[in-house]
């Protein structure tokens, strides 16, 4: 047997964007968590972490904007993909527990470029992104303009977005890096490629599409 065939899953710039965005988000998460969870606020004393939070958010916002300019079609596709839900997704949700625990592949409907779970994560990323930015902008720039009530509810919105994003990030990291069956997930975000075989079993519909394109 020679080299196993590989297919390109992510472009280099997408990978760069993913990791820059990840780094910024982790910094935001940590500097935010110390203000949220009780009893771990000590590092925030003096306010340095709040400045770091603001520097990180600038990167967190600029990175996707730059990416949008570079790849407007890919971004539109990403948004469309995230918002398109169908019968396959219901079947996926029903079959997923058996697959993720027991490795039962039988009932899993073939998936497109991303599966239903990944779409959920993309939805969380987009949704909490909007919540974070709106509530954060109120707290940063409109503090002296809006009423205390609006500020207070912005804090709550920021909290809820934080929890959602944090929990789903745990799941995302777990599935991407740790889950015994997701053997090529991390690699695909590293060199952009996955093996033919992995593509066929994990993203059947997508694999068929790209094979047709080649043939």
């Amino acid at each position, binding site marked *: 047997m020679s080299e*196993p065939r590989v297919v390109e899953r992510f472009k280099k710039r997408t990978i760069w964007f993913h990791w820059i965005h990840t780094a910024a988000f982790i910094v935001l998460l940590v500097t935010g968590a*110390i*203000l*949220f*969870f*009780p*009893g*771990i*606020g*000590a590092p*925030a*004393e*003096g*306010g340095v*972490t*709040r*400045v770091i*939070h*603001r520097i990180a958010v600038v990167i967190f916002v600029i990175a996707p904007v730059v990416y949008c300019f570079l790849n407007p079609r890919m971004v539109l596709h990403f948004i469309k993909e995230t918002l398109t839900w169908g019968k396959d997704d219901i079947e996926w949700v029903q079959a997923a527990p058996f697959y*993720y*625990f*027991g*490795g039962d592949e039988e009932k899993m409907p073939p998936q497109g470029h991303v599966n239903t779970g990944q779409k959920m994560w993309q939805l969380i990323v987009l949704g909490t992104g909007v919540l974070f930015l709106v509530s954060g902008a109120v707290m*940063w*720039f409109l*503090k*002296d303009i809006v009423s*205390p*009530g609006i*500020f*207070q*509810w912005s*804090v*709550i919105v920021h*909290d*809820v977005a934080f*929890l959602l994003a*944090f*929990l789903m990030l*745990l*799941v995302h990291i*777990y599935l991407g*890096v*740790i*889950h*015994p*069956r997701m*053997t*090529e997930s991390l*690699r695909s975000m590293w060199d952009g490629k996955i093996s033919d*075989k992995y593509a066929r079993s994990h993203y059947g519909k997508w694999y068929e599409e790209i094979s047709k394109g080649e043939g």
Partner: protein
Amino acid sequence: MEISRKDFLKASAGAAALMLLKPPTSALAKESQTKDGMAMLVDVTKCVNCWWCYAACKNYNGLPETIKPDPEQPPPLSPDIWTTLKPIKKGDEWHSRKLACNHCTDAACVSVCPTGALSYNKLGFVQYDKDKCSGCGYCAEFCPFGIPQMESNRITGVAVMNKCTFCQDRVSNGEQPACAAACPTGAIKFGKRAELVKEGKERIATLSESGTEAQFYGEKELGGLHVMYVLDDTPQAYGLPVNPEVPPPVLVRDVIKLFGVGTMIVVAAGLGLNYIIARKEQMTRELPGGKNTKKEKRD
């Protein structure tokens, strides 16, 4: 690859264990919170607008001095002004209410402070450790009286809060707060809260007998204020809210925090369980003779 994955797992497990070991000190726990302890009684009928409280506060706390303010234009609270007067005109006279932190028993600021810079002193008042302030400004936004004052840079967000500390150093050493010590007429009286409540109510009775419509403020508000007022007009006239309350988002936030810690634990446990089960299943599958023996191995 296999090794780094193992290390990663170990590190994650360690981090998770640490999170579980560290008991989340509940946002709801309110150490040494009490409506008793020491308090101040402010009697507007005894105030003669001398502004000595204002000057004494600035002097003791090392705040920049100013000339004696004009009651027509009373200076608002600011990072440099921790106590001021709220004068109202009654007939030809100015009647003034001292305006500063009311040191609530149920203090919204203490609930929302993420670093513990604001906390309850065992003597009842809200003590403040400026070195711990992160400058988040939540206290200023959640205080029902609008007391905390932020010194802040709008762009970088670097900030620090200022407010009346109840002269915590003096009071802890058995002295009176500077404003109370300076007051020449007894309009600001410092003492045990229970005694001051009694005294305030007696004063109201006396004033009412002589035909003044007097009101006592601070006995029940926000669990009991540690600065209470004898007023000869409505609270609103003196800039005090009727039935102030801890803003509902504070309670919502406490619930979200508890819920958050709970779901973190559940999700972490769920993922751990999934790993154990899925790993076992995968190993059975990879046994010699299993259907995907070699190809799954990476790199």
